[in-house]
């Protein structure tokens, strides 16, 4: 992949969030630039969780931040509930941001260590003077209860008195209390222990059901993304590879990168010997000078001349399954040992 195109987008009026041709570049000195995100188009229907998955440097977090306008993208549009956020002024953006929230990876550093939990959770309410006095206290307590914390115990405490999982619960309470429509979750469970990760994933599912939230869930762990998402988009080096229904996409990956990613995951089953699986050679190239054409071609066992010359376009291959690849895998087909050996040679 790693291609362009909008075949995977749903009709314009249906989506709560519609991102088109998003480009994010950063200066890298001496006239060079980092191509963090290149011509990415995405959408999310109301109540849908879109999982954005890929390895480090693929641009998934940058995409999430660009949706939040933190900072605004280099080019492209981010239409949220009918409004293009990239064209808004500062005060209009502040207004819209109450309906857009973000949950960050490191739950401890994303909370102000000097403030008490009640103040952290109530801050959004204070800024917009939505409620005050007893109503505010009741609302904060109610929200703490919803995320599984005992308000009487935690209200007056500060973040350092909590574990990572509890801090992530506080972050979720803070994000949800302003009644947002869309939450961007940037690796919300990757800093947590396995046993706590499951608690937070379940909590996010509960919050989504209860408040009808739309979520962009960004993570590098494919199993986590599959668990929580209604639709999954795989990214590589700033571009989209494959988009689709998680059950379909994981069962029949069409992009060689998706297939390689899936087979690289260590399976908790000793009868699956890792050496019998296919592993991908090489490493992700520099986003300062990404490969021409398909950005995955330097590591792809199937790459040929067309992959060098033309950026693949997102194409529909099934009901809700789209791939940007010149040589996609047929259903049930896997990248063979022979092809992999050829690629690494």
């Amino acid at each position: 992949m790693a291609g362009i195109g909008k075949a995977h987008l749903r009709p314009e009026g249906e989506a709560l969030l519609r991102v088109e041709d998003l480009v994010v570049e950063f200066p890298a000195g001496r006239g060079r630039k980092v191509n963090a995100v290149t011509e990415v188009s995405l959408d999310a229907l109301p109540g849908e969780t879109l999982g954005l998955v890929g390895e480090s440097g693929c641009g998934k977090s940058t995409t999430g931040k660009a949706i939040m306008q933190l900072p605004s993208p280099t080019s492209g549009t981010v239409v949220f509930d009918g409004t293009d956020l990239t064209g808004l002024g500062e005060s209009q953006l502040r207004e819209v941001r109450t309906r857009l929230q973000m949950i960050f990876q490191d739950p401890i550093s994303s909370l102000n260590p000097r403030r008490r939990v009640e103040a952290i959770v109530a801050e959004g309410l204070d800024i917009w003077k939505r409620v005050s006095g007893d109503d505010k206290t009741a609302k904060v307590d109610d929200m703490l209860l919803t995320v599984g914390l005992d308000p009487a115990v935690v209200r007056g405490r500060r973040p350092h008195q909590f574990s990572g999982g509890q801090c992530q619960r506080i972050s979720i309470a803070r994000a949800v209390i302003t009644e947002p429509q869309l939450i961007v979750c940037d690796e919300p469970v990757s800093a947590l222990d396995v046993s706590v990760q499951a608690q937070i994933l379940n909590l996010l599912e509960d919050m989504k059901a209860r408040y009808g939230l739309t979520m962009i869930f960004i993570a590098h762990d494919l199993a986590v993304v599959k668990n929580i998402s209604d639709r999954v988009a795989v990214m590589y080096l700033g571009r989209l590879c494959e988009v689709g229904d998680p059950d379909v996409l994981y069962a029949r990956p069409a992009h060689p990168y998706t297939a390689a990613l899936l087979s690289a995951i260590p399976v908790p089953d000793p009868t699956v010997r890792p050496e019998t699986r296919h592993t991908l050679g090489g490493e992700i190239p520099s986003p300062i000078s990404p490969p021409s054409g398909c950005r995955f071609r330097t590591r792809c066992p199937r790459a040929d001349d067309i992959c060098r010359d033309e950026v693949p376009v997102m194409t529909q291959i099934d009901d809700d399954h789209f791939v940007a690849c010149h040589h996609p895998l047929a259903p049930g087909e896997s990248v063979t040992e022979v092809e992999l050996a050829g690629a690494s040679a």
Partner: protein
Amino acid sequence: MSENQTDHANQPVLEVRDLVTQFSSERGTVNAVRGVSFDLYRGRTLGVVGESGSGKSVLSRSVMGLMPGNATRTGSVRFEGSEVLNASPKVMRSYWGQKMSMVFQDPMTALNPVLRIERQITESLHEHIDMSKAQAKDTALALLTSVGIPEPARRMRQYPHEMSGGMRQRIMIAIALACGPRMLFADEPTTALDVTVQAQILDLLQSMQRDREMSMILVTHDLGVVAGRADDIAVMYAGRIVEKAPAERLFAGMRHPYTQALMRSIPKLEMPSHTRLDAIAGRPPDLVNLPEGCSFAPRCPNAQEKCLVDDPALTADDDHADHVFACHFPVNEVVVAAPGIRVDGQPPRIAHDPSLGGSA
């Protein structure tokens, strides 16, 4: 897996008995490792699995003697028959690098940022093996080639920041292997790496271990990482080994409720989207104020009154002496790994059949 079963008759490379490691802190004594015993034989890999605070990393550092000033250790650590627990730093220096060495989690902070790669690899060759400059350079080149680094001669002149995380971890492995250690500690060697690079590094560690017949302790929080790569797996919780067994046997029939809960709480690729996860309630205990009795009891679905007062000792399974667990009320479930897969010569059994007595 060691194919040469006669190795088992030999003396273990490493014998750890009742190892206790404590740290003094402002809050009180931190009980990081609380009485751990195990043997490790030549060419075998022990996977140590646990969450943060389980003592898994402190355990390897305690064995190697890489301890800060506020730590105290008791018990016994015998390496090839010699007691090394309270050996002087001078004596330990003769072990580090040549007999035991370690691959750390974060290759960026473990490597010296202001030294070229060549110097970092050849340092131990000069220090321990007394090689000449030219010999050391040739050895370093050969090592870099063996760990899969393209253009090794160019890489030798570079600094760590000029390399990717995966490359740096390959360099770390080359340094750890430079003096031909008998035993390698790999402490979360792939946690900082991406999944496709993780697979490459684990493959590399495994092939190096086989070629050199090293013993390895692979420390990780990820059951998936050790499942296919360790001969034996020890699960740690709150400073103790709560269950230990050969990998196949452990996955075929987990006996400790913590091991089972850990396994169930992981989202798995084959689960349909939106499968509700079996989360473990609560969180791991505070190592300064440990609960009385079994430290997992406050989170355990099987806990009874006895568990709250009486800390269970590690005991062997009735049928399998090499499967030990520390639980008063072990789970009896036998998980069939895959249809038709025979576990150690026995046919697969049906899950949740109490008549099986819980062994696989």
